[in-house]
């Protein structure tokens, strides 16, 4: 199947992403999971250390922002290695070191030529044991404020917070303004000690021999050897919230969605592609949520609301829950009611199966394209394997792509009908004081 406007074929991406890929998963005696993916023709190794639960999900009210500060501390000195020597070790061995924070984990990742992998293993492993000093935290206050300020009115953040009622998965990914310059070193250290434990750690290597990776994991990659603490389950609640300020209005309607390990995850991805369309963008940007997308297929929502609003669909899968939301931005605040009606109409039409076989085929192609282009890069593959090993059932990339191919009309209908039955999340941003229906009206419209 080819996508006409760009000539990009999923089969080409399939070939590049999954050709000669062999994966292996083992668990060491200390509980550290080791996952390797061999791609013989790749000259560069990518190794990622995933610390599960250490993201904002594991934060409490008192430790808000700890994950973000731990990410900043990942670039500083460690308990045994000063900052300059550590950075010099990476640079002189041709390695690129990166620390990322996702909602449920922290990722310490290094890309390095094969020959230098053992040389950078020590500084990479040391990064799991940052130095905790007051001045190191205070030095980061203004940088964290600069990083977080653009996300103060971010729609995705607000939808998550309302959907999960400001706890667990509803904790902010970026520090809220009320906490600027207030994070304390003792609380960051407390968050670190709570989650940086061997049984929460997954070591993922792409382009690395499994035996070598196991040896490095045993000798260099270890966190605290304590039993992991239970993280409370994050419960989807839903609800309504309006954030009124002087900006173009944006509205989002969200639902509880399949989790990472759910059998319906593939169907939810296809539903996202069906409603929101498909686009081609760089894989790295896709994973970082900043895709500059070239649209290759218009979704049903965009068709229905053409000229009135610009729409999109977002689906995030987490370890024990997920969030699927439709968003629309429009110019006149008085159009709010008709935009929301249009969104609900399309959701219900899709839930009733009012789309053709060709629509489904195109949606599946779009979903596979977005998955494969992410898996095509080393960092995308590292993230996929890490999330699977920590939070799901270690599904291989091939199995996941096949699951998307096997999605039927009934699967998509079932998933969308499940959405309509759950308590929705209704969020408005910008000039939304007038023109939007009430939450009760939205619920009634969804349930009719």
């Amino acid at each position, binding site marked *: 199947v080819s996508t006409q406007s760009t000539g990009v074929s999923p089969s080409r991406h399939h070939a590049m992403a999954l050709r000669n890929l062999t994966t292996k998963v083992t668990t060491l005696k200390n509980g550290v999971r080791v996952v390797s993916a061999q791609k013989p023709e790749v000259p560069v190794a990518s190794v990622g250390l995933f610390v599960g639960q250490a993201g904002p999900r594991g934060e409490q009210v008192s430790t808000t922002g700890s994950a973000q500060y731990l990410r900043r501390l990942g670039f500083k000195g460690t308990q045994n*290695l*000063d*900052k*300059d*020597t550590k950075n*010099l*070790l990476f640079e*002189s*061995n*041709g390695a690129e070191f990166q620390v990322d924070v996702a909602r449920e984990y922290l990722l310490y990742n290094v890309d390095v030529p094969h020959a*230098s992998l*053992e*040389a*950078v*293993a*020590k*500084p990479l492993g040391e990064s799991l044991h940052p130095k905790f*000093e*007051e*001045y190191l935290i205070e030095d980061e206050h203004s940088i964290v404020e600069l990083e977080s300020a653009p996300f103060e009115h971010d729609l995705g953040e607000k939808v998550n917070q309302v959907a999960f009622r400001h706890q667990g998965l509803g904790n902010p990914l970026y520090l809220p303004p009320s906490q600027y310059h207030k994070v304390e070193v003792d609380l960051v250290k407390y968050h670190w000690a709570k989650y940086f434990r061997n049984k929460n750690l997954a070591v993922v290597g792409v382009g690395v021999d499994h035996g070598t990776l196991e040896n490095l994991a045993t000798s260099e990659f270890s966190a605290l050897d304590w039993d992991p603490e239970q993280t409370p389950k994050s419960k989807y609640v839903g609800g309504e919230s309006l954030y009124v300020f002087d900006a173009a209005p944006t509205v989002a309607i969200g639902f509880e969605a399949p989790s990472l390990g759910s059998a319906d995850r593939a169907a939810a991805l296809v539903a996202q592609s069906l409603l929101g369309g498909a686009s081609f963008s760089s894989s790295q940007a896709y994973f970082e949520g900043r895709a500059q997308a070239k649209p290759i297929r218009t979704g049903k929502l965009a068709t229905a609301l053409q000229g009135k609003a610009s729409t999109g669909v977002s689906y995030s899968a987490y370890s024990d829950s997920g969030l699927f939301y439709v968003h629309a931005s429009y110019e006149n605040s008085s159009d709010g009611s008709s935009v929301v009606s249009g969104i609900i109409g399309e959701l219900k039409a899709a839930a009733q199966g009012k789309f053709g076989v060709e629509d489904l085929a195109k949606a599946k192609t779009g979903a596979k394209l977005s998955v494969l282009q992410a898996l095509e890069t080393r960092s995308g593959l590292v993230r996929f394997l890490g999330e699977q090993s920590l939070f799901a059932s270690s599904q291989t990339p091939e199995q996941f792509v096949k699951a998307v191919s096997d999605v039927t009309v009934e699967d998509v209908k079932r998933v969308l009908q499940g959405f309509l039955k759950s308590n929705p999340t209704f969020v408005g941003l910008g000039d939304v004081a007038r023109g939007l229906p009430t939450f009760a009206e939205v619920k009634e419209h969804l349930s009719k």
Partner: protein
Amino acid sequence: VSTQSTGFTCGFVFEHRMGSLRIGDKIFYPLLNTAFRVLPKGTLSKIIEGYKVAAGHRRFGLKFDDLIVQTPEVREAIRRLPRAEKQAREERLLKAFQLSAKNEILPPAQWTKPEQDLPYLAPYLREVNAEQQARTSWFHHLSGPELAKKVGAKA
């Protein structure tokens, strides 16, 4: 703080007075190493303690590390002090300045006790100096595998 009223006549202790290791490296530390080997155990500690008493800073409620001349390295070490330590240091210096202006000293019961006069700034100063040395040293000329071997990584 005026040193005249303290009767301070001892010679320099290079690290504390200069805050720099250059002169100490060439002259003082070789002498100190020899002294440690030759003299009976505890002698140097007694000499250093005697020097600190003669310096007279304890009569103003100060600690020895409060007197370190502020070179850029010392200023960075002071910046890295925990908030509580920094605040305590500033309070001590303010009180000492006020006493010095009035040409007074504290009553003996309020003098800094020897067990309180600990080198609180030394760890941070050591860290700053080590970072400075690493930045300017021959580390930068090592290749990747050589540097890795130096810090104990496999290469």
